[in-house]
């Protein structure tokens, strides 16, 4: 009967068990996700994390293809804020920046944030956060062998390089930006001010130096083509320095000289790793070629060629988002019929005009970069005239998309069959590299910087490599005559600028070159198209008087041609940010 007596303690006993056993019940870790410790204590996961950092490289072959501009990589190109490339008529992003859409409010008062410029800024900082996470945590990954250690060094170097890349993407658009070199936590001060331009460029150069010291000049195996190398970091450094040395920033406290920039470019030349491709067109059609310092490996799904500019009768979808202006076409030199030297194209010269589309006279890159009236493309003669296959009537309402009289074909392979579109065999590229930096650009940077530092015939560090030599390398490969050694410093500079426009067209360079040179007002001029009319005798009359782009509006303030505005909402979130020149007085309505 003892048990019956003791039953009175049963409930208190159960209560005690209940109260003492509950404490761990709240520890329920999620089973599907990994935490930071799990990722960085595992070398394979750490590797994978580092691989995903390359996702932050986004090509100019925009995600426009997918119908959204989210974190638009192709923004700058599409925006065609430069004077040499027009977007399609219904290109929203063009409209957005030009019409002041950067501060337009949308539905639900979510103005600003949805704007392209805001996305570009946000994406850069998201990328920088991802890189900072790696740089703060890679040291926890266990490294068992020397091979592991070498691999890790390379991965870390690449991360420094990628961070420099993203900061440069920010700086070239906004100037000095807030510098974030650690992973910002929810508890940290999330509102740093903008750093000045000198600090920013110094930081980029510092990351490039760290990256270059850790990386080799080539990737460890061909399966890793696309990873960054020592040359990429050195090249990016040269680009950042020439940016700082350029007129706009050197007069605004960058503290960087042309000599600094020239030396950095010379260092890349002296690596002796990169070589110009013999054929200009191959640079864009052959992946990972000897001229590329770094690039983004672009997916076939992007079908850049298909969407961006192909007329539909050639197997495209007629968007024609990139159209060379007549001003740009005029940049291509022409062989003088007397001297045989290539000279600036002059529309007042009847001989130039008569031979403007003459492949044997015009800079060969003209024919290699675009189609025009009478050009041959995929076996078809392009008819850019009323009634022709690319004329204003030929493609109905879509005709409006082909309105300058030219169409870029630079990245478009006309020989490889990749499928059919609208029943037409489509030729194009199974795989493309979006080239961020290539050797020809390095040569032109050197030419520009060294000429500014000491004239056409000077060389950096007494290397004997002259500015003139560098530009002539590029001209010779293109198939046009050398510049004479007698050229003046000023003329040389003008030639370099023209050479950059032609050689690097639609590579996302002109857009920024005009900004670092501080010549944004070239964007404000009226731009023109060519309208061809076919005569009964089969000859053509060309009219150059018509301007292009009813949407091309001009800013009120020339400063607005240089730097991007900071999204007004970002300034509200971080009042320490100061607005860029030209944009401060614009208040939202």
């Amino acid at each position: 009967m003892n048990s019956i007596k003791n039953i009175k303690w049963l409930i208190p006993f159960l209560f005690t068990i209940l109260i003492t056993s509950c404490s761990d019940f709240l520890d329920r870790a999620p089973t599907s996700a990994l935490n930071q410790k799990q990722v960085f204590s595992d070398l394979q996961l750490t590797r994978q994390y580092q691989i995903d950092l390359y996702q932050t490289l986004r090509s100019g072959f925009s995600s426009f293809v997918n119908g959204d501009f989210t974190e638009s990589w192709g923004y700058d190109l599409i925006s065609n804020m430069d004077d040499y490339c027009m977007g399609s008529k219904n290109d929203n992003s063009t409209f957005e920046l030009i019409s002041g859409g950067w501060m337009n409010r949308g539905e639900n008062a979510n103005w600003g944030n949805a704007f392209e410029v805001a996305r570009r800024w946000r994406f850069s900082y998201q990328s920088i956060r991802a890189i900072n996470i790696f740089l703060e945590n890679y040291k926890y990954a266990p490294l068992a062998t020397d091979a592991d250690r070498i691999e890790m060094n390379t991965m870390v170097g690449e991360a420094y390089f990628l961070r420099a890349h993203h900061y440069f993407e920010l700086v070239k658009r906004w100037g000095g930006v807030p510098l974030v070199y650690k992973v910002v936590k929810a508890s940290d001060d999330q509102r740093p001010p903008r750093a000045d331009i000198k600090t920013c460029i110094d930081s980029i150069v510092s990351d490039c130096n760290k990256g270059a010291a850790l990386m080799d000049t080539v990737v460890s195996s061909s399966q890793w083509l696309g990873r960054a190398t020592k040359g990429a970091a050195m090249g990016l450094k040269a680009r950042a320095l020439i940016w700082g040395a350029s007129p706009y920033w050197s007069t605004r406290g960058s503290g960087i000289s042309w000599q600094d920039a020239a030396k950095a470019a010379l260092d890349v030349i002296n690596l002796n790793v990169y070589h110009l491709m013999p054929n200009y067109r191959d640079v864009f059609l052959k992946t990972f070629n000897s001229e590329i310092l770094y690039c983004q490996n672009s997916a076939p799904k992007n079908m850049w060629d298909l969407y961006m500019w192909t007329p539909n009768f050639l197997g495209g979808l007629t968007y024609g988002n990139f159209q060379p202006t007549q001003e740009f076409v005029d940049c291509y030199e022409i062989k003088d019929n007397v001297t045989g030297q290539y000279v600036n194209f002059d529309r007042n010269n009847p001989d130039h005009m008569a031979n403007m589309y003459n492949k044997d006279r015009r800079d060969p890159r003209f024919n290699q970069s675009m189609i025009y009236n009478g050009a041959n493309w995929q076996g078809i003669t392009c008819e850019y005239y009323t009634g022709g296959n690319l004329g204003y009537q030929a493609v109905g309402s879509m005709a409006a998309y082909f309105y300058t009289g030219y169409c870029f074909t630079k990245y478009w392979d006309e020989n490889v069959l990749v499928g059919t579109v609208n029943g037409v065999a489509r030729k194009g590229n199974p795989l493309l590299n979006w080239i961020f930096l290539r050797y020809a650009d390095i040569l032109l940077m050197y030419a520009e910087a060294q000429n500014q530092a000491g004239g056409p015939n000077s060389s950096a560090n007494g290397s004997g490599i002259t500015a003139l030599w560098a530009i002539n390398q590029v001209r010779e490969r293109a198939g046009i005559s050398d510049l004479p050694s007698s050229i003046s410093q000023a003329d040389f500079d003008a030639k370099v600028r023209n050479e950059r426009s032609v050689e690097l067209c639609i590579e996302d360079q002109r857009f920024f070159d005009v900004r670092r040179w501080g010549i944004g007002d070239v964007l404000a001029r009226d731009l023109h198209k060519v309208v061809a009319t076919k005569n009964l005798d089969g000859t053509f009359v060309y009219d150059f008087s018509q301007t292009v782009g009813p949407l091309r509006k001009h800013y009120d303030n020339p400063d607005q041609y240089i730097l991007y505005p900071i999204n007004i909402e970002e300034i509200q979130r971080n009042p320490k940010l100061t607005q860029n020149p030209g944009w401060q007085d614009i208040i939202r309505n």
Partner: protein
Amino acid sequence: MMMKIKNNLSIYKHLMSFGFIVLSFIPSGVFGQTDRPGSPDSTITIGYNVKTNTAAISVIRGSELETHATDNLSNALGGLLTGISAQQMGGVPGSDGSNLWLRGFRTLSGGASQPLVLVDNAPGDYTMLDPNEIETIKVLKDAASTAIYGQRGANGVILVTTKRGKAGRMSIKLDAQTGFQELVGLPTFLNSYEYGKLFNEAKFNEGSPIPFYDDATLAKYKDQTGNNIYTNPSVDYIGQFLKPNAPIQRYSLNISGGSSFAKYSILLGVMDQQGFYKYAVEDPKYSTNASSTRYNMRTNLDIQINKRLSVLFNLSGQIARNKSPFVGNSTIWSTIMHELPNSYPIFTPTGMLGGTSTKFNNPVGLMSRSGYQEVNNRNMQAMLEATQQLDFITKGLTITVSGAYNGFNTYGYQKQQSFAVYSVDANLVQTKFGLDKPLSDGTDLSNDMNYTTSLWGSINYDRSFGDHSLQATVMTYLDQKFIPRYSPYVNLNYGATLNYGFLKRYFLGGSLSKSGNDNYAPGSRFGLFYSFSGGWDVHKESFLSESNILTQLKIRSSYGLVGNNGQVSTQRYLYQTQYTTGEGYPFGTTYSSTSGTVESQAGNPYFTWEKSKQFNIGIDGGLFNKVYFSFDYYTDNRFDMLASPMNKLPDIFGSTLSYTNIGKVNSKGIEAVLGVNEKMGDFRLNMELSATFSDNKVIENGEVNGLSSNLQGIGKQSFGEWGLKSLGFFYDAADIANSPVQKFGTYAPGDVKYADLNHDGIIDGNDKTRLGGTGIPNLFTSANLKLSFKGFDIGVQIVGLFNREVYIPLEFSNAIPNGGKLAVGAYSRWANYTDQNGNVVDTRSTALYPRLLTTVSTNNTQNSTLNIKEADFIRLKNIEIGYTLPKAWMKAIKLESIRLFCNGYNLALLYDQAKIGDPEYPGAPIWSYGKTRILSFGASLNF
């Protein structure tokens, strides 16, 4: 602000008329005695045997729920319990419950606003219980009663207690009621002739001067004789396919009784609710009509093991089978609400199903030949609880341990069938489209389960020392909800309460709880919650105790901190930084990605629960021993509410935080009850008026700084749609020219004109403002009247909902642009033209809807005060009339009692501001299933 004042005036006006209706029921000069639970004297026991004298609590007995013929108990609570506002969304058999809010909506829009529901102190669902299972429902409203629930108490607590047996002879109660449901709030659609005429007008408005339907065709639509019914049909979809009524029945058998050793209460219940589909197959083995059949069972046992140890054991279950045609209720209703009257004849001359090459939606086919689906739900609850008296330690000490299980399984399947349709041309030639296919084998529709286990224990001390009384509790509580594919959802509470009384006149209360949840960071999972409360029974003071006028008076007040850990999204563990598989990157010359890893969620270690500082002051009183009243004022200031921080967090953070605790909302409200209990001879009366007023204001919601005032959420009510203010319709071209440009697409005279709220000269999305609470009223009122005379009894319930808006679907007027037809609302459209016969049609001054169009006008379909309308209403919600047969007769038939009754639920609208559909939720028939009125009669037998 002006709108608010205007509203309040109109509410006042309504209240007056409302009071009049109720007062007219009160006979003069008859008074009785109060026997209400929760009267000022009583000490109320809430969860875990906690006792309080100072809290704000509403109580009803289960018997009061029996008068409502609805199948879902949540439909009965609004109007019976002061403090609760309810909105019933539709009438789908088996899922026609109401959304409930306790003291209104007090969190941020999108936040968790529902009260915590506990059945016998364990997590559970009371809505599917039979009313005979329920002893009481208590609504805990203030911090004094909810602080013990810690992180889950802030929205209030609904405590359901089930019926237990009483010692004594066996009592058997048999309830049987049967009745029918009717549909309410359906649109009235135009027939083909009317439709055709207005369709021509719509086409005319779009620039087609030649009538789409010529006079000859219209004449055929009008003359539905001969072959016209095939070649030019005019189908009345509601009349043709929906039965005027559908049966509903409920039976329950309740057996209870027991001895001093064991007591029992056993219930068996059946509820069956049928659907309205006229052509559904109604074979018991193979029915395609909508229906819900529910079986309830419960055994509650109390066993007194010895003098000091008692054990409670509950076992209960609900089995529900919900059926519908294969295509689902919403497709059937959508077809009825949209298909054009002239699309096709329902039956061809040879009796085949009508249709066209593109329309296979013949409702006869959908209802009877599309197959069916069936969902079976199984709920089972078990509870074991033991209480030990510890008076051998000290007198008044007890200890209780309780464990419960609540399991849910659902399995649904469907069997599909298809049918051919036949088009009929002008010569009555039929063409077949589609195939007749027999019923297929079944396929799974749903298959899911979850279960919750809960454990609690409490030590209670309850003793009086002379003038002092003391009740104290120490408790612990744990529940875990297991959904197989997720980690369990866990709540863990520790708590203590104290209730002290002096001279039965002065009361002090306090509670403290340490409450935790697994969703938060280690070390930050627990929060401390507390309340202080006091009460003063003024009437017991000598200066009042002799009063014949003021016969009861008590003042009570409380203040405390309570939490709300209900989540805004299903995302859990936001404190954690999480990583997942990334996109990788395609290195090399073949385009194939190497897999990667990315940060998928930036953790916020400060992620925590919403907190609520609640103050309550209340007064309970009685006059002449006949009239009672109760009045409560409360404030609820919330902070740490979940809101997106992305308008505050700069992009340089480099990631997103989905929710952080930045929101703040202040709510306040008033609850008032006025009741009369009268008794004179055989005449008894109880009449009670109650009102719940609640209002809130957003203090911080994370929105962008510097918005124009109309776009600001801060300073406004935290819930409701955003929309434009409609100014009516553009009168003519001059009106358009003189008005700001509207940016929602093209518009012309007769289209909606909106107000330029931000005064920028442009009407766009930036002119939106908060349009008040959609569905949820600021003022919820009710009147309950109970009269009995000899064997007769009558109960009347009226509810009134004020200061609310509802969304009005365009199906009530012109749904042609959205693939629908025209309803009578279309006659209130804007029109201004001269018809073929030279008659001027000009409705510009009276129009309620924009001009008719056949294509979508984005200008006219913006959310605005045109389609989100004020919809106050007063409803005669329930009446029950009963007659108890004289006792004398009972002896002969050896029964304790027989009561016959009839009742009606959702009977009539006494006031309806919007007058479009059913004002509670006009979209119900359009989007799910029409709301129903229920009339039933029955008998209650006691053996």
